[in-house]
């Protein structure tokens, strides 16, 4: 029960203390938050950083010559450096701030997609994508005449490389857009191998890092990713801020997305010229306070360190798989070799909604539904599932509480 405590430098009690919300009660019960995969809770450091901006150092960025504006711009731009370092990007100019992973992917579809893909070109996604990595490509397909192909996954929930190979054989594929970690199956995809695979076949690769970036150190240069996206709110940061990484030469060639202030070099009615990346893609007043909050979140996670986070989550996941698979009639989806703290499951004769509601009554928050992955539900032969996801503040005791809660659910439906 105390496996987590054995991890060096990882003091789970201290960590939980950093998150004010975790001491709340729900329906008079201890609050057990197993929905971090949808959005994570925020540590005091992030809250404080945002409050500090608003109380002591706020003005619009980039355009001001006065002290408050210069200081706010510095704090804002420092997060770009921090984010570049966090992903090991080659340059700060490769980091574009967006609202969330969804906007990051759409930005690529609207700019790179329309400018560099031609009718007849194909895009490949996998069967385990989130809607955010399906719908933008469908929209591009429908407006722009590119083809959208779906590579299969195996029954274990891993990328089926034979199917992938098959999708690439005619040489039409220009982009492989694929998740780094499934938000349903918990599968980590072999991103280095996928990047190499795509590049050898003349395609670029976009990785949806929404889930992965929270749990593992990401190194976009080692992966050789062309595009990498994630959301701040899943990384213990604020809502309203997301990240798009793209290789410099790709960004340089991309036309702008939204037009307005800050993304221009000059404006006349006849013709406007665009600023250099990343500013070309950041029109209007950015999410200043949220960007600074994201910086605090990155600092927080790095101070704990990914080795400790990963070890903790590994222990949680192993424990969860062990205790949940003992519950008769409970079925865990996916059994990838390399999987993390995202566990979706169904129970015989109990609908996922009812599981969620009955657990909620016990203070336990899990998600139920299609998890924005309807096509994957079809592939798995279910319409909805319950899902427990873990964060760095999740404890072994909470997993035991989940297991106990599920046994009570079974009783109600017995």
């Amino acid at each position: 029960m105390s496996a987590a405590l054995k991890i060096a430098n990882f003091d789970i009690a201290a960590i939980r203390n950093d998150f004010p919300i975790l001491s709340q009660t729900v329906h008079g019960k201890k609050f057990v938050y197993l929905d971090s995969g949808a959005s994570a809770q925020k540590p005091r450091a992030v809250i404080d950083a945002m409050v500090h901006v608003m109380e002591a150092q706020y003005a619009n960025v980039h355009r001001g010559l006065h002290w408050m504006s210069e200081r706010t711009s510095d704090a804002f731009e420092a997060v770009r450096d921090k984010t570049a370092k966090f992903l090991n990007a080659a340059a700060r100019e490769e980091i574009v701030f967006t609202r969330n992973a969804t906007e990051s992917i759409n930005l690529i579809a609207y700019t790179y997609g329309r400018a560099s893909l031609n009718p007849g070109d194909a895009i490949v996604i996998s069967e385990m994508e989130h809607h955010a990595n399906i719908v933008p490509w469908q929209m591009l397909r429908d407006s722009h005449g590119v083809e959208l192909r779906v590579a299969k996954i195996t029954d274990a929930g891993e990328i089926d490389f034979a199917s992938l190979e098959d999708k690439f054989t005619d040489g039409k594929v220009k982009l492989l857009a694929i998740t780094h970690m499934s938000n349903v199956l918990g599968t980590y995809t072999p991103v280095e191998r996928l990047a190499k695979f795509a590049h050898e076949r003349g395609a670029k690769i976009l990785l949806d890092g929404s889930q992965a970036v929270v749990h593992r150190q990401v190194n976009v240069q080692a992966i050789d990713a062309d595009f990498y996206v994630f959301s701040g709110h899943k990384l213990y940061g604020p809502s309203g801020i997301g990240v798009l990484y793209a290789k410099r030469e790709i960004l340089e060639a991309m036309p702008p997305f939204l037009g307005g202030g800050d993304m221009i070099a000059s404006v006349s009615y006849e013709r406007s010229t665009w600023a250099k990346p990343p500013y070309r893609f950041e029109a209007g007043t950015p999410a200043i306070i949220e960007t600074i909050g994201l910086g605090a979140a990155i600092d927080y996670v790095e101070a704990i360190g990914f080795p400790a986070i990963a070890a903790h989550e590994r222990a949680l996941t192993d424990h969860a798989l062990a205790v949940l698979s003992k519950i008769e009639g409970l079925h865990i989806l996916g059994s990838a070799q390399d999987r993390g703290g995202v566990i979706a499951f169904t129970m015989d004769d109990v609908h996922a909604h009812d599981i969620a509601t009955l657990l909620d009554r016990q203070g336990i928050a899990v998600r139920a539904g299609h998890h924005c992955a309807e096509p994957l539900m079809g592939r798995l032969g279910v319409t909805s599932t319950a899902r427990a996801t873990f964060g760095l503040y999740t404890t072994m005791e909470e997993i035991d509480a989940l297991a106990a809660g599920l046994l009570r659910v079974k009783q109600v439906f017995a």
Partner: protein
Amino acid sequence: MSETAELYQTLIMDRTKNPRHAGKPAKFDFEGHGENPMCGDRVHVYVADNGTRVNHESRGCAIMVASAELMADAVAGLTLDEVTERRMAFEAMLNSGTPNPMLGDLNALSGVSEYRSRIRCATLPWSALAEALGGAK
């Protein structure tokens, strides 16, 4: 498990596990469909024998199935106007959480009021019924 009693009470669990009106009848006059895009749940409602029999085919949660069952009990033999009246009273009851004597067994679902996101589960069969009866007007 007293804390869930108010919602998953015996009547609801009983009707979910042992539905009396499930399945497609051989003959029917009207049919209607309801679907919740957020979760993929769906219910199909059949009205047969001059409005005296209502059946449903459901793929959904306990609340939805129990609601379809209790609805089928409640509306059998009512006039169109009476069905509309029941539906409105039912929805008001779900929102307020206050049982309404007129609703009889349907009041078993009053606990849903504490779960705003589950209200849709309880109203889905009624939307399907409304669609079916739209054809009856």
